[in-house]
């Protein structure tokens, strides 16, 4: 079966690839992912905020105790190689590039325009074949409007895309008032692909200790539906390649994502739960399903169930919700 697809300018043998996860921190896992046939390796994000926070806190904890007492000028060994910049991430990126032949996508979450650009350039210099800009940001300031935030995001994408030589994908969250409008603007700003969607750490409440707990549960196939919904809408409107991210656990999940219009399908939770080899199984399931259902190619199926082609486009709109309500009845 011809599963080839084109994503971010890369001709891929099939659409399945490992999405952003801690697996990329371990080169053995990365090699296992490639062995399992991952069409590309997407790294987890480098968080500018975290880098800055670590630099500042480490700087303060080390500096505030130096030269303060006659007996000890410092309390830590002086190691010139001890750097708190992005080196660790970039070094891992370099190692992954050396270890695998498939394209490697580096991912970035910045806090300043300068940071977005500087780190993006460093990632490209370190060998990233493409970038994923992770626009995840929690806005708590009531004086900042959606338009203002979106304009800022577009500025980031425009700046980075114009300054780096590799394709730039944007990883989105689902919470936009008008995602199609923003997606169009992103494409115009130079984005070469969109990843739908980010999954968030969301605070949970420890009711005994009255503490907030941050947690990230692994996805289930149920999480895919939100992606299917928006893939279906956006793929009907734009030609920009889309990637599904979140909720693909089986071949059928992958089929759904592609039918909704995904050019690439990222997997994380399934691989964390069942190991890198799960990717090959899903690929085989996908291939088998296409054979069984007598498709000519993956491309034939792509977008077949999107807003433009599905039998009942209203399903993508509010009717979906309405019908569910109408379909429910107490015993």
């Amino acid at each position, binding site marked *: 079966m011809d599963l080839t697809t084109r994503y971010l300018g890369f001709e891929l043998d099939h659409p399945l690839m490992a999405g952003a996860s801690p697996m990329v*921190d371990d080169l053995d896992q990365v090699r296992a992912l490639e062995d399992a046939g991952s069409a590309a390796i997407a790294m987890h994000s480098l968080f500018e905020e975290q*880098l*800055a926070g670590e*630099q*500042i*806190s*480490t*700087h*303060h*904890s*080390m*500096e*505030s*105790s*130096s*030269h*303060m*007492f*006659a*007996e*000890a*000028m*410092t*309390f*830590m*060994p*002086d*190691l*010139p*190689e*001890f*750097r*708190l*910049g992005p*080196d*660790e991430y970039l*070094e*891992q990126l370099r190692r992954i590039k050396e270890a695998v032949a498939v394209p490697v996508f580096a991912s970035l979450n910045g806090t300043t325009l300068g940071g977005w650009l500087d780190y993006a350039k460093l990632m490209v210099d370190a060998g990233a074949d493409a970038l994923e800009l992770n626009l995840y940001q929690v806005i708590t300031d009531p004086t900042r409007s959606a338009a203002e935030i979106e304009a800022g995001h577009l500025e980031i994408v425009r700046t980075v895309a114009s300054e780096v030589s590799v394709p730039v994908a944007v990883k989105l969250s689902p919470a936009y008032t008008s995602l199609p409008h923003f997606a169009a603007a992103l494409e115009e700003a130079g984005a070469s692909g969109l990843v739908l969607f980010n999954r968030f750490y969301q605070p949970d409440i420890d009711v005994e200790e*009255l*503490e907030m707990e941050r947690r990230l549960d692994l996805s289930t196939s149920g999480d895919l539906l939100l992606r299917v919904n928006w893939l279906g809408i956006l793929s009907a409107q734009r030609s920009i390649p889309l990637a599904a991210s979140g909720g693909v656990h089986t071949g059928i999940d992958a089929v759904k994502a592609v039918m909704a219009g995904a050019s690439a399908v990222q997997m994380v939770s399934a691989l964390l739960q069942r190991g890198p080899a799960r990717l090959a199984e899903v690929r085989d399931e996908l291939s088998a399903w296409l054979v069984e259902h007598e498709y000519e190619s993956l491309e034939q199926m792509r977008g077949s169930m999107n807003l433009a082609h599905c039998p009942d486009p209203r399903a993508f709109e509010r009717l979906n919700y309405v019908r569910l309500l109408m379909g429910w009845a107490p015993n």
Partner: protein
Amino acid sequence: MSKEAHNLIDGNEAAASVAYRTNEVIAIYPITPSSPMGELADSWALEGRETIWGGKPDVVEMQSEGGAAGAVHGSLQAGALTTTFTASQGLLLMIPNMFKIAGELTSFVMHVAARSVATHALSIFGDHSDVMATRSTGFALLASGSVQEAHDFACIAQAATLRSRVPFLHFFDGFRTSHELATLDMLSDDDLRFMIDDEAVQRHRSRGLTPDRPVLRGTAQNPDVFFQAREACTPFYDACSGIVAEEMKRFAERTGRRYGLFDYHGAEDAERVIVLMGSGAETCHETVDWLLARGEKVGVVKVRLYRPFSIADFVDVLPPTTRSIAVLDRTKEPGAVGDPLYLDVVSALREARDDGLGRLNGDPVVVAGRYGLSSKEFTPACVHAVLDELGKSTPKNHFTVGIVDDVNHSSLSVDRGLDIEPEGVSRAIFYGLGSDGTVGANKNSIKIIGKRVEHAQGYFVYDSKKAGATTISHLRFSDQPIRSSYLIGRANFIACHQFDFVDRLDVLAAATEGGTFLLNAPFGPDRVFAELPREVQQEIIDKKLRFFVIDAYSVARECGLGGRINTIMQTCYFAISGVLPREEAVAEIKQAIESSYGKRSPVVVQQNFAAVDQTLANLSEVAVPAEVVGEKARPPIVAEAAPDFVQKVTAVMLAGRGDELPVSAFPVDGTWPTATAQWEKRNLAQDIPIWDPAVCIQCNQCALVCPHAAIRAKVYDTGDLEGAPDAFQSTDYRAPGLKGLRYTIQVAPEDCTGCQLCVVMCPAKDKASPRHKAINMEPQRPIRERERQSYEFFLGIPELDRSRVERLDAKGSQLLQPLFEYSGACAGCGETPYIKLLTQLFGDRALIANATGCSSIYGGNLPTTPYTVDANGRGPAWSNSLFEDNAEFGFGFRLAVAAQTELARSLLGGLASQVGDELARAILDGEQHGEPAIAAQRERIAALRAKLASLDDPDARRLEHVAGALLRKSVWIVGGDGWAYDIGYGGLDHVLAQGRDVNVLVLDTEVYSNTGGQQSKATPLGAAAKFAAAGKETPKKDLGLEAMSYGNVYVARIAMGAKVNQVLHAFNEADSYPGPALIIAYSHCIAHGYDLRFGTEQQKLAVRSGTWPLYRFDPRRVEQGLPPLLLDSDPPKIGVKAYMRNETRFRMIEKIDPKRFERLVAAAQESAEQRFAVYQQLAGITVPVPREDEE
């Protein structure tokens, strides 16, 4: 270091630079002030710097200086070029090996940052008492007087020892030279190769032990031959000084810097001459120049090679006209005819006269003088006084200079106003806090300016505290060589980086007329003048100072720099001092910021750049009025209520005027009163915790965890509230046993360091707004006075009767008065909460032996000390002997206490019928466990004393002296892991094996904290520490398991942040256990590299990850048929990585080498799991109890 370069380094680096490049093995042990030499060698080796022969030396840290000396001796014997660095007590520990090394005629140079040997007190500062204690070892003693000389003489010594086979001790003055930053010309590798004779190196190697040419060294010899064999080395000593002179000559030919065995500087026809060695000689040189310009006939002899002492060379440099000589020693040998250099000079002159050596016309008068003990300032005024004395017809002999000796009347009077520093020298003084970065910034500034002027010098004075230490930086710049080896007396620029200093220190005392004063103040230019004490205003007016102000803390906050104002104040200095053009200076500062932080923390660079720019916008010159304004005067240094001694002695020291105190002010034997920290109000915290009784659950954990006893709990009668200030907070005490009482948590606002451990520890949260806890931080300044009054009132409320506290758990223990308070420990210290708890539980009957280290410094460093007394005047008796012997020292306490108890019991037995059999029996058999029982015994002893007073019997008088010993004493041996795991381990092991009733508290920070983070055997696997910079490969030594192996030692491993009540169980059980007890206490430390407010959180992670299992091993449980080991923590629930990643000591490995980090994490994980499994198995083992009837 390939080419000769003009450089700016300190004396330690100057010496180490040569030692490193000319040796193959370096074995060290950290000791102030020599530690940086070893640390530099370690970090150079890590960088891969090479010796002059290629390759890098093997740098090893040993368990003590005795161990280092042994390793050095062995390495030398096996033929390697070997060196070491040490000082003070460390040097003393090397003496046995020094005799051997010299006796075996071994080429070897050791470098010593000379420091006082502890006598009536420990001192980390400089004098020659350590070096002089090695005179009989057979080492050559070569003295440097400056940073340049420390560099040059390190080379000359290395060259000379290889040729002469006499080992060398090369020394320079601790701190004054070891820590002075100065401009010097560096010796290139080629210079060193020129000086080091390769053939001599080969000869050294060929003397090394090898089975290919076996020899025997270290025989035992008998009366028939030892003496003769000992004399056989003499020709080498006879030749040694000549070889040194030759090497000095070769050195001069190569570098142009000329030295002699003795260097004379002064008038050719001098009549008065000073002889001395070390940095003081530079001050003499400078003063002699000044006097020569005024036509005085004076000179100075700088002794370079003190041993072997060349009489001919010495007398040769003395001008024929010399009429009087003052020999100055920087050491004291009580009871000797004179101090060592004096004795040698007198003997040398006598022998020279007899042998017709030298050029002297007559027979000069020779007097001895002593100066500079423990870095006492030795100024041109002192030199002037000595030379004046020499002009008298009968100059005073055995004088002292630099102090006022009103007891022995030995001191010379000194004109302290004498200022001889040339006008061309730019001089600046900076007052700062240790934590605000002032010293670091000044070191930076010197390097910037040092590139543009011929000569620069920086010297830094630190006070004795760790949290909130005052630092004073002294900077000189000149186009002429700077020989001023003393603090700046008059400065044209003075900066005060902390506004509160103007209240207690006379920061402008050294300001010259027309000078510049820079002040960091929370007030603008319009208001700041009026906010100054009138005394300071007057000084500014009188001295016509230009006055600049900046609110540096505001700028720092805006730029995200927190409390670090270093960059801001440095920028101000450059902006207004005019040492460099402003634009150029700003560019240089930015470049320095980039090179300091750029690689590690680019964000920090941006913040500091912003701070530089903001500084220039916020710096203002103050228009100084013609008259003082306002009524604000300097407050008294200590409160009026302070006792006489504190007023007359301590307060003077606190004001920075301790130098003025005369000999008569001091105890003759080093015995000081306790309870003095309470008089020093330091106001360090920007924010302090404030209690909310509505939220509080009365658990007392805030008080328990406070490192400074600065937040306290009290339970008291309602009536005690009478006269309470309006702001004083109080609530009903909730406890089943104590009804109708009131309860208060109160902060000591002026003693709190603002560490926030209490707030993080507090478990009580407001239900409606859990962010609000039962204690919350608030800015200190606005509520300082209110809380000060509340705290004063709080202290006045009587303490709860100890025997009324029902349970000595975490809560109950905090109702007992802490007898350890307001120490100088770091903010957030993890050690002091344990010590404080110890004093709460047992302080009124405790003797504490304290190993040298952090706990002896914050426990016993003047001016004020934290151990205090209760309302009955009882409290811990505390002493520090040494670093290495603390277990034995405390063991001695127990022996003495036991002897006195035995004597008292025996006397009481004999007097039983006279004092009453019932009372005697009650005392002799009285159970003394628990506060009610202790209180009952105290009452019985009081009754006994009353009876004894009425008895006319000599035994009654004897019993009166020792009756106090009838109360059970708690003997505590306290120290850090450096002591317990390393240097003192042999002694600790022996003491534990003796079965006597001593309690050992190991404050385990897992690293040498006091000397700056060197690894110990307590350092955990994976942690980066000095001498284990790549992360320690081996697991932490399991000290507890080793102690358990005796079977009769009580052992507990505790972590206050993780399980408070287990801590209390351990302390109470250790005290009640009649044999040896060992408590190993997890102590978070600034050397771990994170914000210590989260110290207790990290302790929880340490326990939950199995890194720090909690347990108690109580031999008493055996008799109950139970396993002696009780595990108090659960099996590991989280990975060790979760714990390790929070601390820079582990994290830096992850950043440098992630693979290695993962490997170390895996090894640490395995080690934690294995150890826990071992404990689990042990906790299941019951030990059979031998029954007597089975015998």
